[in-house]
């Protein structure tokens, strides 16, 4: 038997400390809000007492009183509360106007499950209290929460926020002007974020992030177009290839055209965000994004006004007029619905003759409605009972719990064949469910553009904004939002539930701002950047276990992606990390062959075989880090010293002939400079961290000087190895300073904060 300490600890004060009304506010020291009371106590009790039968797959699913488990619908608590309130409000006049919900549960009236709550039991008291609250909603006096969730949590300084934003979003270090502005007034961050989101580098970041969700830019080409509708789709194939020059040209055209198709979905995202269009257009946009080369495949190149017809990176929105043909029947026209009408999107998420778009429907629900179809029925599939039904996916509740939301949407995608070609529906669909969404059937007049109808419905669905906020969180952190716990007998249930509620509240808050801004996705990014869940960096005291559990949602702790690592390296050193003339890790993933030597070893994905990043380091990525620290230090220290002093980015304060004895101040100053440039740490010259590195620097130099004096050409030599030289001008390290600085830079490059932003 489970206990409900949260309930009984607060019940007395709730009953005496609240007043009737209709407005809910945050819980106070004396009062627990109705929402919190339901989420934490009533839902838990019902999950244990009622959900066994009153689940979508349970024997009481036909009653209409259905309780959802977490994991499927993100808003499962609201759904459960809503249906419970509806039933609580139904009164039975024959039984002293008592609630039907209580009468059923206590078997006061006929109940298929018999008596599930004993009179006077804790659970019965909880239900009684819930019904009382439904009848008379409580207002809690707003004194603030008893223990603020973020009590003791420490947050980033404005400077640290600035640096994280410029590194992540802009792939660059903050400018001096930006740093000064933020140091002077932290509110300046807001305008800097706005400016950052105008930079091209932000859209590279955004496209990479969205590709981690869509996975569309590593496969596919003009073959995704229906050859009948788009007879020019393979225009590249018709090019001559008799000479080497012709073959090179043909290869280039093929590559540029592929790029036009593969980038099209993420370029739609960029188009919407850059132009601050309502992000609902991701489901409704009346156009497709093309570059000059894919435009030829669509047969509309002469209708698009590109600035440069030879630039494969220029994408423009185009509304296809009947698929490029004239005089075609209305039902075969080409209708646009953002990604839902993208052959590129549906070719990535292809279907089969028997899967019947169901896998596509799963993707649709997950990406656009934050609903995991596969978790709607985590329990119970009784093989003995399935055989009792002629058509179980319609008639058997253990099957139709998924098929009811899934199959009607699958039917709406019937204008696409299994490979993603748009081939207007010609009436052969004959399956168990009629096309529709959320219980509304597709109007007969919309059969020809059913995907567009779906886009309109989904864009208006209340789950759409929260789904986009969850997607933004995933892009920024690499993590999914948390799922509410399911096992209320676990000792950490309340803490996990609390964490879920806190994160969900933040998602809801940002969703509201998103809707208020007319679905401007930039607003979502900014809200997350400023969210305390995102900017938390530490907490005053080591939390006890209970508190530690709920604090799991606080603070960024995701291993940087290889793409972002490559950008960071470039930002710090103004050059890529090269190994044998190849990029070690590349940020430019538009072309699948260009990922770099260590890309996959450092948590890279190909969006085909590997679609999830691990986001946590392991022995393999740890090895890449170790190599990177030493190799980057070696390649950049001497190179920077070889530059004129005024042009150096790493060593503006020292020369290669420094000694601790006479240049300690300058050496300290330069270490401070390196800390800020490489790690974003702002230390004072006399900080103990600086002392440590000065000491390291001095010890290595001393050892080197003694070694060179003793051995000459042995292990200790004044010559630098080839990749560690600063070109021909700096191949000798006479005072062993280059290698001392190599150690300092390598030390910083292996730091936690270099790999976690």
């Amino acid at each position: 038997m489970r206990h409900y300490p949260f309930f009984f600890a607060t019940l007395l004060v709730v009953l005496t400390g609240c007043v009737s009304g209709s407005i809910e506010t945050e819980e106070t020291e004396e009062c627990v809000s109705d929402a919190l009371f339901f989420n934490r106590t009533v839902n838990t009790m019902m999950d244990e007492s009622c959900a066994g039968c009153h689940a979508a797959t349970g024997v009481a699913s036909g009653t209409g009183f259905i309780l959802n488990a977490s994991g499927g619908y993100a808003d499962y608590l609201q759904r459960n509360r809503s249906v419970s309130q509806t039933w609580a409000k139904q009164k039975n006049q024959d039984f002293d106007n008592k609630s039907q919900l209580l009468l059923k549960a206590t078997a006061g009236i006929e109940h298929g499950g018999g008596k599930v709550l004993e009179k006077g039991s804790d659970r019965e008291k909880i239900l009684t209290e819930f019904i009382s609250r439904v009848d008379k909603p409580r207002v809690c006096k707003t004194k603030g929460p008893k223990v603020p969730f973020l009590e003791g949590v420490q947050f980033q300084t404005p400077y640290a926020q600035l640096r994280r934003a410029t590194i992540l979003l802009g792939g660059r270090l903050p400018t001096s002007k930006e740093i000064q502005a933020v140091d002077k007034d932290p509110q300046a961050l807001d305008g800097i974020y706005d400016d950052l989101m105008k930079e091209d580098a932000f859209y590279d970041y955004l496209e990479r992030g969205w590709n981690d969700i869509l996975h569309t830019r590593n496969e596919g080409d003009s073959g995704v177009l229906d050859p009948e509708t788009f007879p020019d789709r393979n225009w590249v194939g018709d090019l001559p290839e008799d000479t080497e020059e012709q073959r090179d040209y043909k290869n280039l055209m093929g590559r540029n055209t592929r790029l036009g198709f593969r980038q099209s979905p993420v370029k739609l995202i960029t188009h919407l965000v850059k132009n601050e269009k309502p992000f609902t257009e991701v489901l409704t946009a009346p156009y497709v994004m093309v570059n000059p080369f894919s435009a030829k495949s669509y047969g509309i190149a002469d209708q698009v006004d590109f600035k440069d017809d030879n630039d494969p990176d220029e994408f423009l929105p185009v509304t296809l007029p009947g698929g490029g043909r004239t005089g075609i029947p209305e039902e075969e026209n080409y209708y646009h619905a953002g990604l839902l009408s993208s052959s590129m999107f549906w070719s990535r998420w292809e279907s089969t003759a028997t899967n019947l778009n169901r896998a596509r429907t799963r993707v649709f629900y997950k990406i656009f409605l934050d609903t995991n179809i596969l978790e709607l029925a985590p329990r119970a599939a009784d093989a003995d009972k399935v055989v009792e039904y002629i058509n179980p996916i319609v008639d058997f509740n253990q099957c139709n719990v998924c098929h009811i939301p899934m199959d009607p949407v699958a039917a709406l995608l019937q204008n696409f064949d299994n490979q993603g070609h748009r081939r207007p529906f010609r009436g052969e669909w004959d399956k168990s469910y009629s096309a529709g969404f959320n219980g509304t059937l597709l109007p007969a007049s919309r059969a020809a553009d059913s995907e567009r109808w779906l886009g309109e419905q989904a864009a208006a669905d209340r789950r759409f904004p929260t789904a986009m906020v969850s997607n933004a969180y995933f892009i920024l952190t690499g993590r999914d939002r948390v799922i509410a716990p399911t096992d209320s007998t676990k000792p950490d249930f309340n803490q996990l539930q609390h964490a879920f509620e806190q994160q969900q509240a933040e998602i809801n808050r940002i969703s509201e701002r998103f809707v208020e801004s007319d679905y401007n996705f930039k607003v979502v990014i900014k809200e997350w950047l400023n969210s305390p869940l995102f900017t938390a960096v530490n907490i005053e005291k080591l939390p006890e276990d209970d508190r530690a559990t709920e604090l799991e949602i606080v603070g960024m702790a995701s291993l940087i992606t290889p793409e972002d690592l490559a950008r960071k390296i470039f930002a710090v050193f103004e050059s890529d990390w090269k190994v044998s003339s190849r990029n070690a890790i590349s940020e430019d993933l538009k072309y699948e062959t260009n990922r770099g030597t260590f890309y996959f070893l450092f948590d890279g994905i190909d969006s085909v075989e590997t679609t999830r990043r691990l986001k946590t380091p392991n022995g393999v990525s740890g090895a890449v880090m170790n190599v990177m620290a030493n190799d980057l230090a070696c390649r950049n220290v001497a190179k920077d010293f070889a530059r004129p002093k005024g042009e150096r980015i790493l060593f503006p304060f020292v020369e290669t002939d420094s000694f601790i004895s006479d240049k300690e101040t300058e050496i300290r100053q330069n270490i401070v400079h390196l800390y800020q440039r490489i790690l974003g740490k702002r230390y004072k010259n006399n900080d103990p961290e600086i002392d440590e590195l000065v000491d390291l620097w001095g010890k290595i130099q001393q050892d080197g000087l003694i070694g060179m004096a003793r051995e000459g050409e042995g292990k200790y030599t004044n010559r630098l190895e080839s990749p560690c030289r600063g070109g021909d001008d700096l191949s000798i390290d006479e005072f062993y300073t280059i290698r001392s600085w190599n150690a300092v830079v390598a030390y910083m490059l292996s730091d936690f904060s270099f790999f976690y932003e």
Partner: protein
Amino acid sequence: MDRRNFMKLVGLSGLALATPVASDAFAAEDNKVYKGNFFIAFVANGGWDVCNLCDPKGQSEGVDQAFATGDILTAGKIKYAPIGANESFFKKFKDDLLVINGIDTITNGHSTGSRYAGTGQLTGRGYPTFAALFAAKKSEGLGLPLAYLSYGGYSATGNLLPVSRLGSTASIERLGESDFEGGNLDRPYLSEFGTKALAELRAKRRSTQLGRQNLPKINREMGTLFAAQLSASKLKKISEYLPNDEELNSLRGAKRSAAVVMAACKAGLCISANLSVGGFDTHGDHENRQNDRLTEYTETVEYLMERAEALGIRDRVVLMMASEFSRTPKYNDDQGKDHWPVASMMFMGPGIKGNRVIGATDENHQAKGFDPAKMKPIDDKTLRIRPHHIHNSLRRLTGIDASDEAVKFVLQEPEIEIDFFS
């Protein structure tokens, strides 16, 4: 720093406190070598048809199969379907093989089924797979860079340890010698003194940083990062045990992964691994597509065990063969088979008594009940074999059932203990 927190984090990192904090708390002792068993979970992604494998029925009114009942083959006490590469597989492994039929997974959902098969917990989001649990427990104090390798399938870790991928082995030697330019031992980046001084200062900073960081998530990630950096140098050992270049380059898919996993185990870098073959979700053209996948699957098992044999570790490999569920007895309109919750698993390895079939299904591939006292299938279906029964038994077999990790992730409804393995 707070000692309790520090120890906890070290534990989470899969490493034991082997050296004083001031030198490097995250470095394990190099002379510690893992001498225990390995656990390999080989997953058939999408839902395999066990009637085409280890629970054959033959064509009947209730079951569609491509072969007649009379064509069913037997190896030892194990019946198997006469298709694909089954004959070679069952003949080769019959003496080692434990087949568990009639497992009621009570789900037709891919993600739920994968989770249940991998962890033994139906609703256990956040639960580690058995492979992760086993690796976390057994790798304590060893600092292994690839303690849990995953090549597909459900691979949640419950934050017990990091999961690793190793897609390419081409740069492995270079990565293992990070203090030398290009991995060349003649070209150190720093002098021996410099390398040592740098390592000591890094160790000091790691301890300081960890001691100051109290947010649990960030603290755990820090510990994991430090452990990853320090264990990386061991990676180079793997190259000694890979097949020769010609053989390695000829391998594709799961076989290639199997070669890497076995090399990593032999090198003492890996304790558990997921292998997988996909494409089993055959809602259409079932017989052709399913049998093609099954052939790749069974041939991969043969290759895996060949490699284990060649490396001298065959007697240390515990192999679990499983899928999220099975396929319907009857074809659908497209000659496919849909999801069916009654499944089978197969096991072999040390401590597992082979040439046995436990559990059963009826002629329509419905799960029979099970009498745990007699270890026999019965008509009374009050108790049916469920994945958590098997996982509980697996935990006991491998001696980790009482570990802190196993207690933390206790499996649901352990209404009865069943010993499937001995």
